[in-house]
């Protein structure tokens, strides 16, 4: 049994070790002036590198190269590729190759794969094409186009359809609500727990309400909404618009004179401008409710006291700041999603890339905007 298993896989002399190595492949470039010859001999099993042609061999028209493979005993499939790699630059440069001296099986392979000198010589003229526009300029252009489209809408001359806008509100608002509520509830719970744990050390549980109110309403609700929208809605925008681009639907709009920004971007942007603050409000309420529950049931803060403190804490600018942030994040999500979709390439793969880019870009922009807004509001003292 062992013999029959071992025998076929080890034909005598084909094992990589032992005395086989004596007759290794050998290649020699011979000749001078315009007449050259490549002499191949020996066994090339395992060897797949040819020596480079000598510098005296001038790669130009008129040079001729023939082959002598009479002493070539064995060659693996990889040998054809190695030979092609060595000969292709010569053929491209106009050297006349006489393949007749090669093994019969190699001749058609090389004849097919080597470039034809007269065809290869005629290359299409390279053109000085304008440098590709940098990303930031594309984004600025896009924002400008969008503002122009908004201006046209305000003057009542827009191709935006009311039904598109309402449909987008329905898609981005009510359908995002469950996940926004879930996430903001859990985050509110975490904030209340962490805060209460610290405050309890000083016997200051009654301040949980202030902490939760300011934290959730001013910052967390908006951020939760922004991130949920980036993943749920921004990605969808990029995918929808990107696949419309791949399917030439956007070209079809353009040929009719319809501005794709007006027709596709505006309804999405305006829908998020409506649903962003509303979702932020819902997220804030959910966070406050959970924070209250933690304070009342776990840290024995009287319910009425909690409500009163919350109302006092809400009196300031916090609610306004929170809603403003929610709107800004929503706009950034729409911008990133639509811009990536409109600038996507024309393939299915490009749509996927645009989707990823939209989410990443939206989140980065959001964090930058959050920092900027925080600094601005600190300076303003609100």
């Amino acid at each position: 049994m062992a013999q029959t298993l071992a025998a076929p896989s080890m034909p005598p002399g084909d094992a990589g070790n032992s005395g086989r190595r004596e007759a290794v492949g050998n290649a020699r470039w011979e000749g001078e002036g315009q007449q050259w010859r490549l002499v191949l001999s020996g066994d090339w099993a395992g060897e797949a590198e040819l020596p480079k042609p000598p510098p005296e061999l001038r790669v130009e028209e008129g040079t001729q190269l023939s082959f002598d493979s009479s002493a070539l005993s064995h060659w693996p499939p990889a040998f054809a590729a190695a030979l092609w790699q060595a000969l292709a630059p010569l053929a491209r440069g106009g050297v006349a190759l006489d393949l007749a001296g090669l093994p019969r099986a190699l001749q058609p392979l090389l004849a097919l794969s080597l470039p034809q000198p007269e065809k290869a010589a005629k290359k299409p003229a390279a053109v000085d094409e304008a440098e590709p526009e940098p990303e930031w300029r594309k984004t600025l252009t896009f924002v400008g186009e969008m503002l122009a489209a908004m201006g046209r809408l305000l003057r009542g001359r827009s191709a935006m359809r009311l039904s598109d806008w309402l449909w987008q509100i329905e898609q981005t608002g009510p359908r995002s609500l469950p996940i926004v509520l879930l996430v903001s509830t859990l985050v509110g719970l975490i904030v209340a727990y962490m805060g209460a744990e610290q405050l309890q050390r000083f016997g200051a549980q009654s301040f949980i309400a202030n902490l939760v109110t300011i934290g959730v309403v001013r910052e967390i609700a908006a951020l939760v909404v922004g991130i949920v929208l980036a993943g749920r809605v921004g990605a969808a925008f990029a995918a929808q618009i990107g696949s419309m681009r791949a399917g030439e639907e956007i070209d079809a709009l353009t040929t009719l004179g319809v501005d794709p920004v007006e027709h596709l971007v505006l309804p999405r942007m305006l829908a998020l401008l409506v649903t962003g603050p509303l979702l932020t409000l819902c997220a804030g309420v959910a966070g406050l409710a959970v924070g209250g529950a933690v304070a009342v049931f776990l840290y024995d803060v009287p319910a009425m006291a909690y409500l009163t403190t919350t109302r006092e804490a809400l009196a300031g600018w916090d609610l306004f700041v929170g809603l403003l942030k929610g709107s800004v994040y929503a706009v950034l999500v729409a911008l990133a999603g639509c811009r990536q979709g409109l600038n996507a390439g024309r393939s299915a793969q490009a749509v996927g890339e645009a989707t990823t880019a939209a989410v990443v870009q939206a989140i980065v922009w959001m964090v930058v905007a959050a920092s900027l807004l925080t600094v601005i509001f600190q300076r303003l003292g609100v």
Partner: protein
Amino acid sequence: MADDKNEVLMRVEDLSLHAGGRELQQGLNFEVRAGEVLAIVGASGCGKSTLLRHMIGLQTPQKGRVTWVAGGQERDVHGDDPPRREIGVAFQAGALWSSMTVGENLTLPLELYTELDEPQREQQARFKLALAGLPDASTFDAEPSALSGGMRKRAAIARALMLDPPLLCLDEPSAGLDPLTSARLDDLIKRLKCDLGTAIVLVTHELDSLFAVADRVLFLDVEAHTATALGPPAELRDHGPAPVREFLTRGAADTEREAA
């Protein structure tokens, strides 16, 4: 305006086509005349579709110009007042707007460019669908994704016809269709030309369609980087330059072999 067979609708002058930093074609000069079917042919990658995109104003040329000359005044296709109403376009895969029904797809051009009220628009759309070979009433309310490839192309042609343009541009109308469906589309193109007098510019690979419908053929040579022939297909096949003859006869020989 389409009565006069020799009236020039569109003029392409010294146009160069670029893609990916290479010059695909240069020095293209030709005219599209009223009521003719002009087929743009050539090997893959020679710039046929790019040429069409330049002619409908989707791509701006770096060199040369495309002018709409019918109706007494010259209008640059890439200028401020492009001839949008005058050119109907059906894209390769149909490009029906996926967020609308077929009916909405067809009525949108009327909404944008005419004063017709809704019932009139719907009537027009149903008529154009029937004209394009989709007489079934249910097509009007269908989503584009529910249609087959051939139906989608017909609906796209119907949409391109909504504003009764004197020029219709079709990008590979028969690509990806079975021979029977593709032959029926050829019939449709011929009927549009004969019955409506619409001029048609057609990008195609299919030699069958070419000989069946085209009045003139513009051959873009992939190696010479310019148009090397323009004329009736049969004449080019018999007396054209060698690459054109080869292009036109090789396919014909294949067809004959298939038929035999």
